[in-house]
């Protein structure tokens, strides 16, 4: 079920799949988290190669960590000090980042997306979201987990992108159910349509965010795929 959900978000642009195995580097000061993520990656089909950088940021930039496709980033290596600056540096150097954080607040989630992270997950979200998020990020595509959906619906910051009623409804349902099959069945649409709505919202947020290579990649692909039109993007801001 989980794999199907992401195949669309990861494969919407023409089904380009990585032929070689995906590799990821995790930076997290909790050994148990890294071990858990390693287990999930090994169990994934096909398996994902994981490099454990511990809490050493240098290992993301040099050695096997530097070659990894995806960076799984614990935002708070030092308690109380979210590493937004480091996230920005990773994004600016072209790395594809999945933020995996114990923070559940809207501000942090939207700030990470704004800085150019391809996915934001809270640590309450397990392999059913993390594995698809890593796969999506490896191909430069976003993954919108339920918690991030919740943050999008509750976002009341000035200048936030404008969502259509249907987009808001799908987002709310995805946040509530945490299963795209269930959302599709309830709203009487296909899983593919569910994904389209979620991706459209995600692209609107990417478009409103800071300039970054991930942003232009994301937005131009959505335009190419006809997911969203330039006119729609230009009028998204309130």
């Amino acid at each position, binding site marked *: 079920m989980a794999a199907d959900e992401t195949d669309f978000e990861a494969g919407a642009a023409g089904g380009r799949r990585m032929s070689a195995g995906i590799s990821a580097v995790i930076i997290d000061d909790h050994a148990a988290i890294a071990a858990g993520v390693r287990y999930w990656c090994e169990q994934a089909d096909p398996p994902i190669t994981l490099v454990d950088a511990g809490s050493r940021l240098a290992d993301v930039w040099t050695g096997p960590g530097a070659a990894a496709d995806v960076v799984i980033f614990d935002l708070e290596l030092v308690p109380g000090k979210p590493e937004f600056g480091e996230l920005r540096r990773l994004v600016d150097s072209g790395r594809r980042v999945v933020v995996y954080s114990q923070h*559940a*607040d*809207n501000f942090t989630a939207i700030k990470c997306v704004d800085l150019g992270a391809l996915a934001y997950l809270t640590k*309450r979200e397990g392999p059913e979201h993390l594995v698809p998020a890593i796969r999506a990020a490896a191909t430069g595509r976003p993954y919108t987990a*339920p*918690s991030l959906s*919740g*943050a999008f*619906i*509750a976002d*009341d910051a000035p200048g936030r992108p404008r969502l259509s009623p249907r987009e808001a409804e799908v987002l*709310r349902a995805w*946040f*509530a*159910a*945490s*299963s795209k099959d*269930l959302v599709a*069945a*309830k709203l009487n649409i296909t899983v593919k349509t569910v994904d389209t709505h979620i991706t459209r919202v995600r692209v609107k947020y990417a478009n409103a965010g800071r300039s970054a290579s991930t942003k232009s990649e994301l937005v131009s692909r959505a335009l190419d795929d006809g997911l969203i039109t330039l006119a729609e993007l230009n009028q998204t801001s309130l």
Partner: protein
Amino acid sequence: MPDDLERQAQGQLRRGLRIAMLLVTAAILFGLSLSNVIRKLDTFTAPAAQLAAFAALAAVLTGEAVLVVLGRPWGALRRPAVAVVLGASALSYTTLDGHTATTTDWAFGAANWVGVVVLLDRPLRSLVAFLVAHELTALADLVLIEGASQSALARFATGSVTVIGFPLCLSVVTVVLGRIGAAAAAATRELERVRTEEAVATEAHRRRTRRFAELSGTTVPLLEGLADGSLAPDDVEVQRRSAIEAARMRRLFAETDSVVDPLLHELRHCADVADRKGVEVELDARGRLPALPVPVRRDLTEAALTALATAESWARVTVVGEPELVSVSVVADCGEVDLPRPATPEVRVEMFGTDATVWMEVRWQPTRRTSKPAPLVAAG
């Protein structure tokens, strides 16, 4: 412990007394003493010194007038002011040439009042110390410089009765007034406390009665059935009903807690019931919740409560607060559930089920705007 009420009462009393003292002392200094000084000016050997002493006392009194207007105490200026008063009287005595404690001595009966004015808000012992110092200054002059004659000492003793006695009486009155003020404030506080306790007790009783009435509809029949044997504890349906009633009671107890987000607080209590049974519960909340009345909260939590109490192994509860919408969603493997109709017309329930998974969403959409929403933190 003094509180605002007491401070206010005391403050008013003190201010009144200060103004009265200022007026009385001004009358003594500028009325009696000034006329005395002017009339006897020719008889003084050093009129300039007498005038200087008078001016010093007048300056201290003017200072007090300014402070009264500003509503401020003497503070750090108090000691210098007392020194000026004692110095002025000493200057006056030493240049009187044997007239200390006679009718020519204008300072003996005036400087004491000026000193009292400065020390009015200090403890009684400061005032007594000042009066003693004032008395000793005059006595020292009398004994050391003028060579005390018997008649001079007699005059001095007679004069002292008024010079010390009157200010002392006044100070005692000040202390007593202060105590009366404190007692009045304490009595008011006590009265308020008793009234509050009474109100709390009445409210607690009302709540208990209401709680019991609320439980009597569903919980009491269940308990009666279990007691008289008509309901079997090993019946699955009875177990389900018991779990739901237990969760309702938990919610009922949580309703009266005073917390920032009562809706989330009540949901957490419902989640705790499921948690104890080994059900894996996810609770996530987003957005801002407006202040919700108890009947609306009950309608909103009912679906989650029922699903959580009867879930087999997992449940996901989410809350979304938007300005015009509060939605509580629950997805759980609880099978078919029976929900009572919402009591509030603004609440709608949607139910959706696939196989063992049930998804229920309860929405509250007010027709009119409610109070300002409170910020909502994500559920821990």
